[in-house]
């Protein structure tokens, strides 16, 4: 029994570590965007590489967790839910890395008057990711509390929708090439997409939490 519990604790630690990665990924994304807008390119590239490293580490960790859960037939009733949660959370982490990579590759020229709007958008989107991580943690330990965090995720998702819309209207009201407008719009859209993904994970989480009601 002690051995069983030891293995379980290991797995718990791995799940926590994975969620830490997602949480930290969000923070690094915010930091990276800020550095990009301030044109501190070297530091930005460093953050971008950090995030890509975390993404591949997250993939490996997620596969290991899934393998252990299935190999040892742990939580047979909820393993499908946990698997789905981890995989859709992984999409959030991937999206964070991909979006920051987009900034590095495409170097969009963001007019300085909408810098703060981009920062606001990133703030809202990353807040939804942070609440998501809290919601998933509480799913494992105290699933009745996950409801509060799920509410927060939904709130931040709406918020980022609003900010993104504002940015797009702002961009298209400016006098610049349509190609540039569409380029910028794409970035706003991608940052907004992060919170949309977080919302999708939440939808799964709501159902999984209902199923956990003994």
């Amino acid at each position, binding site marked *: *029994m002690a051995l*069983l519990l030891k293995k*379980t604790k290991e797995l718990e630690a791995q799940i926590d570590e994975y969620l830490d990665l997602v949480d930290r990924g969000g923070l690094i994304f915010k930091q990276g965007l800020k550095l990009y807008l301030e044109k501190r390119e070297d530091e930005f590239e460093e953050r971008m590489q950090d995030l890509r490293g975390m993404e591949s580490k997250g993939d490996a960790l997620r596969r290991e967790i899934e393998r252990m859960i299935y190999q040892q037939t*742990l*939580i047979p*009733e909820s393993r499908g839910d946990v698997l789905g949660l981890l995989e859709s959370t992984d999409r959030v982490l991937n999206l964070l890395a991909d979006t920051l990579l987009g900034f590095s590759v495409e170097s969009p020229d963001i007019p300085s008057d909408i810098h703060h709007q981009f920062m606001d958008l990133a703030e809202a989107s990353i807040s939804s990711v942070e609440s998501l991580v809290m919601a998933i943690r509480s799913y*494992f330990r105290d699933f009745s509390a996950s409801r509060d965090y799920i509410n927060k995720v939904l709130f931040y998702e709406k918020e980022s929708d609003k900010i993104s819309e504002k940015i797009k209207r702002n961009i298209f009201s400016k006098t610049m090439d349509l190609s540039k407008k569409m380029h910028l719009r794409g970035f706003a859209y991608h940052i907004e997409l992060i919170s949309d993904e977080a919302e999708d994970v939440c939808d799964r989480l709501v159902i999984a939490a209902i199923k*956990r009601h*003994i």
Partner: protein
Amino acid sequence: MGWSLGANNAANIFGPAVGTRMVRFKVAATVASIFVILGAVISGAGAADTLGALGAVNALAGSFTVALAAAATVSWMTRVKIPVSASQAVVGGIIGWNLFTGSPTDFNSLTKIFISWVSSPILAAIFSLVIFRILKFFLDKSRVHLLEVDIFNRIGLILVGAFGAYSLGANNIANVMGVFVPASPFKSLSLGSLFALSGTQQLFFLGGLAIAIGIFTYSYRVMITVGNEIFHLTPVAALVVVLAESMVLFMFASQTLQKWLLSAGLPPIPLVPISSSQAAIGAVIGIALAKGGKGINYGVLGKIASGWITTPISATILTFVALFFVQNVFEMQVIHSVDYKITPGVLSRLAEEKIPPAPISPLTDKSFHNPVQFRSALQKYHDWSENQLSTIFKYAQKDSFNVQYDSVVVHMLTPKLSEKQIRAVKLLNGMSFSYKWQLNTALENAGESWRPRNGTEATLFNEELRKQKEAIFKLFSVPTR
């Protein structure tokens, strides 16, 4: 009968665990088999005693027919999809034998059995409701990680499953082997002074083995069906259901618990074989009630209640018909001839039991060789109630006892006798008795320690005394044929 009990009823204990893949089938089957056998051998006697009191099927062919007819009733009723329990079929079978052979049915036992059937699902529902509430409160407060809950749940399912299997063996072995007890050919077996198995225990061991074979060969499919289709529960709820069900089975089987209740001055719980499936259904309903009582199919409850009546009646009829064929077509002896003889001694003893001697006295000193003859002779002079008949049969039954005192044997008896009791037995050395009550009276006269007591805590003492006396009767009984 044992095989089908293992194949079907083990699923009530381990079905949810195996069905939800919380416990592997091999682990479940091994644990279930070991504990079913232990339960049957160690605690099987209590519930079997009650069946024995209902009617003593004393010839092997009779026992066989009763068991077969009960098994046939179970499989037939299962085929027409009426929820059925082996316990109810066996009770029906014994009543069928009683009717066929004219032996009296002990209505006292019958009432006890019936009340137990009705109360067992209700008790299971109450237990599971309470346990579920407590466990839910605890789990919500403690914030244990899902994965840890999972581990504790698994260990819990195996432990509770072991307890459940033990209780199942103790409670339901009576269904499998109860009817064979009076006709058992086994003699007590002892290996040294540490380990002794009475004949009944050997019989129960055999029954336990049959159950274990049933578990290993056929219960997997039933477990999957029960776990996935019938009771699809969350693992925690599954644990609660199995625990509540096992507690009920244990309550109706445990002599230790009965003793404890008696010594605490509480009314004892009758030891009766009950239906594990119905206890399980009761426990599931308890969970549903704890969750707000939605989605209960009350039709199922009606079906269960109808089973309390239809199953025993069907089994009674089937046994009666089967016994007719076995006796008249296959010419097998379904009842050993039992002699009944009314003597003046019997009459005065009966008078003490408030049986008026006048209508019996014409039969004085006549011998009757089977219950049917005796019953019709008695009824000729008076319209006796079944209860009165039961008493008359008890005191008029002829036996033969010859007390051959052997210090070693008497000291080895189970339950153990006190030194005072043994001295009293020694006083009777060499005496012969032709009625059981005569030996009983002689014992009581030979020593204070053989007399039943009055007052508080006496029930426990008297119960032990009854068992000691049964052991003495068995020891000094001389086969008359």
